[in-house]
């Protein structure tokens, strides 16, 4: 009987964690995920993977854990003895990091260090491979276009600074202790499972709700930001690939193509069957539904960041050259998949409302 490979995923309840868990289960791994204790359920994205603990062949396990708790992490790594750790857990929202900078530093920065220390303390430096979810936000105020593995960093938010710490401490533990540890520098990656407060999901969800008559107007921050958007499902393939090589290396993971936030709005409208036109400029710019003449998109300066990241464009050629990886989903296909999912959700809610159910949705 072959011994199953074991993986530990922090952040398994998030977008990437859920896609990665699916991928690793398909590949025959035993998958362990960390979930934070909360007073409400927070496992919606992995509920479809749930396996009964009474099943002797259970291969998917969730453990209570927290990146701010060293003892908890050491104990879990000791119990699981993972072959691979994917550190996807983080306070992952850039704008929120300006409100909670210390928590971002603790969870995203020291959290990474705690996991690396757990590997070291338990004598697993030769056994356990480590993947760190690094981010294109490290490039912030970009020093060259496009950004590749050798581009200098210029982080522009407490989130990005915390991730910078995590990036370098991962490199340091690789160099100092020979741990197979590497960084995937992921550019924005989205999916129908993206959190509702991230801009792409906010757009597809907002437009879908407007389409179904549930909302009137979508308020956005800087709609001229340029981003390189890929599909999370493609990107987790690369996360796994990075841990299967002879030696650990850092890679940029991106599509190599960028569009503006406003273009993402236009794509979303197109797939939702809305014809949108822009009027005015700056903070007074409005997106108008040409069929109804109603304003459906407006700018709200509240969503501007204290320091903006204007443009991000990744150069994924090293990933292609060395690991044969290329993204398969275009931003058009991504927007389509996301808005179709959100239209489904909106129709479900509309139906419930029509049948007299009271629904109080979450608001940002």
């Amino acid at each position: 009987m072959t011994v199953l490979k074991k993986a530990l995923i922090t952040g398994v309840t998030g977008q990437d964690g859920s896609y990665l868990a699916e991928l690793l289960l398909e590949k025959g791994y035993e998958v362990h995920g960390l979930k934070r204790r909360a007073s409400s359920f927070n496992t919606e994205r992995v509920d479809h993977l749930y396996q009964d603990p009474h099943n002797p062949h259970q291969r998917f396990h969730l453990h209570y854990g927290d990146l701010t708790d060293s003892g908890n992490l050491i104990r879990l790594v000791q119990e699981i003895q993972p072959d691979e750790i994917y550190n996807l857990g983080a306070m992952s929202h850039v704008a929120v990091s300006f409100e909670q900078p210390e928590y971002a530093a603790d969870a995203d920065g020291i959290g990474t260090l705690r996991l690396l220390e757990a590997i070291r303390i338990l004598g697993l430096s030769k056994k356990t491979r480590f993947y760190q979810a690094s981010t294109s936000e490290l490039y912030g105020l970009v020093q060259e276009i496009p950004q590749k593995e050798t581009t200098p960093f210029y982080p522009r938010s407490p989130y990005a600074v915390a991730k910078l710490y995590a990036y370098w401490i991962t490199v340091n533990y690789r160099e100092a202790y020979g741990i197979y540890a590497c960084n995937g520098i992921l550019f924005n990656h989205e999916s129908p499972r993206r959190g509702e407060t991230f801009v792409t999901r906010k757009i597809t969800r907002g437009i879908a709700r407007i389409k179904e008559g549930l909302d009137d107007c979508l308020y956005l921050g800087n709609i001229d930001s340029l981003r390189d958007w890929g599909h999370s499902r493609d990107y987790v393939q690369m996360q796994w690939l990075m841990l299967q090589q002879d030696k650990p290396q850092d890679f940029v993971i991106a599509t190599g193509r960028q569009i503006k936030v406003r273009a993402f709005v236009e794509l979303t409208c197109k797939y939702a069957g809305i014809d949108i036109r822009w009027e005015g400029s700056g903070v007074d710019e409005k997106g108008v539904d040409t069929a109804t003449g109603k304003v459906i998109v407006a700018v709200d300066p509240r969503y501007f960041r204290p320091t903006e990241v204007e443009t991000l464009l990744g150069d994924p050629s090293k990933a292609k050259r060395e690991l044969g990886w290329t993204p398969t989903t275009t931003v058009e296909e991504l927007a389509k998949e996301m808005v179709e999912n959100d239209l489904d959700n909106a129709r479900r809610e509309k139906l419930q409302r029509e049948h007299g159910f009271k629904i109080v949705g979450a608001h940002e």
Partner: protein
Amino acid sequence: MSRKALICGVSGQDGAYLAKALLDKGYEVTGTSRDAMASSFASLEKLGIRSAVRTLSMATNDFRSVLNALETSQATEVYNLAGQTSVGLSFEQPVETMDSIMGGVLSLLEAIRFTKRSIKFYNAGSSECFGDTGGTPADENAIFQPRSPYAVAKASSHWLVRNYRESYGLFACTGVLFNHESPLRPSRFVTQKIIRAAASIAAGQSEFLHLGNCEIQRDWGWAPDYVEAMWMMLQQSEPEDIVIATGRTVSLEYFVEQSFRFFGLDSKQHVKTDPSLLRPSEIMVGRADPRRAFEKLGWKASTDVDGVIARMCESAKESLAKGALRP
């Protein structure tokens, strides 16, 4: 009315010299330490300024204590020199290193924002952020390649200061200081370790000095010069991050030879290499280009490594004569 300054981490080498420099300029100086009641403030004693400095307890990771220090001192200039300072120790205590360095900077920046007072903030950066510079001297535009938990924490706090300056318009800047030494250095630092060993070997109290890698090269300057640069950085009209160094880099071997020569000794007969003292990842060369400091601040190091060695050796010799030299 005299100007008021707060020095976080006043019990260390730089804190003591900075306190002295600011007192000489007529400042009212408040200094903090994690436990001001338990701390001996030996460096302040040595400089004869213990009673001139008001001392307070402040833990940078405790927001209340940071606010209290800002309030009590009523400082318009805050110098953050606190935090774990040893590269070697950072491999043993990486979490504490990160917490005290980056957590400390973050608390101070947040507390300054919170008070809404117009406070100028100096943060102690480090040349360790550059990693191995090789033959190219590092200036303000050189990229960071940190190679120890200490350096990674310092690099993060450097960016945080820059981020708060750009996001909130705080007068906040980082001095990227290359190595700077003085008789106030504890023996945990290699320069003082070498000099005290040479002095004690010369006095017949010991025979050998054990070192790790002697081939490393550094730019060593005189700490009292460097605290002057810190003050100058806060007197500018615009905050800016600046590299502070002498511009001359020599090997540790050179430092050892010259120190032993001062005491009439041949280092080759007394120095042994001990592999257990090697660091998990080591920077081979640290080389600096301090031109910006001269252009912008008019600052220039008063002496280089030779002067540093001579002054530290003189001091060790005096301590030896007084029977106060501890290896």
